[in-house]
């Protein structure tokens, strides 16, 4: 089975590394990440991703910019806010986002601030 490809964008380097380690410990998921917007755009152009996770420290401006760019390139891309910094919510958020993609039912929070 092909692994779910995940891009993580997170300004806090230590948290980014924790998130990547946790995601990559799941045999069905594969993640790469960056703490820079420009590198995120570059990675998005170079690889196929099923999901983008926006983590800590991302400003509203960066978030909106990245969303626009990613959705322009792939209108189907699922972009979610990650809360909790790589702790108990991480798997849940990914499972929820993936099941949303399959069913079309958005019964969880994409971004509680919007």
């Amino acid at each position: 089975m092909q692994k779910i490809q995940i891009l993580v964008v997170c300004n806090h380097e230590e948290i980014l590394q924790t998130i990547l380690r946790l995601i990559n410990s799941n045999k069905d998921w594969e993640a790469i990440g960056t703490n820079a917007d420009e590198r995120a755009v570059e990675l998005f152009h170079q690889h196929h991703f099923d999901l983008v996770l926006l983590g800590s420290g991302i400003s509203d401006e960066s978030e909106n910019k990245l969303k626009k760019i990613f959705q322009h390139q792939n209108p189907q891309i699922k972009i979610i806010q990650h809360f909790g910094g790589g702790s108990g919510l991480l798997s849940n958020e990914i499972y929820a986002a993936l099941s949303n993609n399959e069913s079309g039912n958005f019964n969880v929070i994409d971004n509680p601030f919007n």
Partner: protein
Amino acid sequence: MANTVLHKAATRGHANHGWLDSYHSFSFANYYNPERIHFGALRVLNDDTVAEARGFGKHPHDNMEIISIPLEGDLQHEDSMGNVAVIKKGDIQAMSAGTGIFHSEFNKNKNAAVKFLQIWIFPNKRNVEPRYSQVTLNAEDRHNKLQQVLSPNENEGGVWIHQDAWFSMGKFDTNFSTEYTLHKNTNGVYAFVLNGDVTIDGQQLNNRDGFGIWNTSKISITANSQDAELLLMEVPMNL
């Protein structure tokens, strides 16, 4: 008419890792139930028991208001802001993870488990400066009354967080009745029974049951057993 949701104690998610025995009222870690993701801004309610001298090693958080309420024993906290503290029964701890923090939590006791509630609330502001606070409350102040233990305001009772949320705790004699009036009509209340039996708006609840109520301005509470203990978490329903 009020809306309600009932989470009986036995229907919670459960994970026993040996050193950690945890019950999840909402989806957490490997427990995933799409019907139980959150109650408004309340995202996590974990009922944790940590074995002697064990605990959660250094791990990160961001953009979450994290509240810990010890029920038994002493919990040692250390974080990347330089805080080292022990919280015990009667204390309440609040941490705004904001732009990101690392912390660890350990059972300070060498010969007894520590039991505590771990509660996570979505904040109303993103990327705030991380913050830590703890207060010691007088347990007598909740005997047959509701004692406010958390609010959005620094100068109110208990700790404060970045959210329009209010928590109260009460310990009641049998047949004692009271009412709780919500602060905002867009908020709901999630009641969690810490001990004994209570009835809230006609719904009988037992130890560790959870009951969410929204679209109402007040709720009625009656204790059905001696020393019934209750935690009320009023949170915004619209995020």
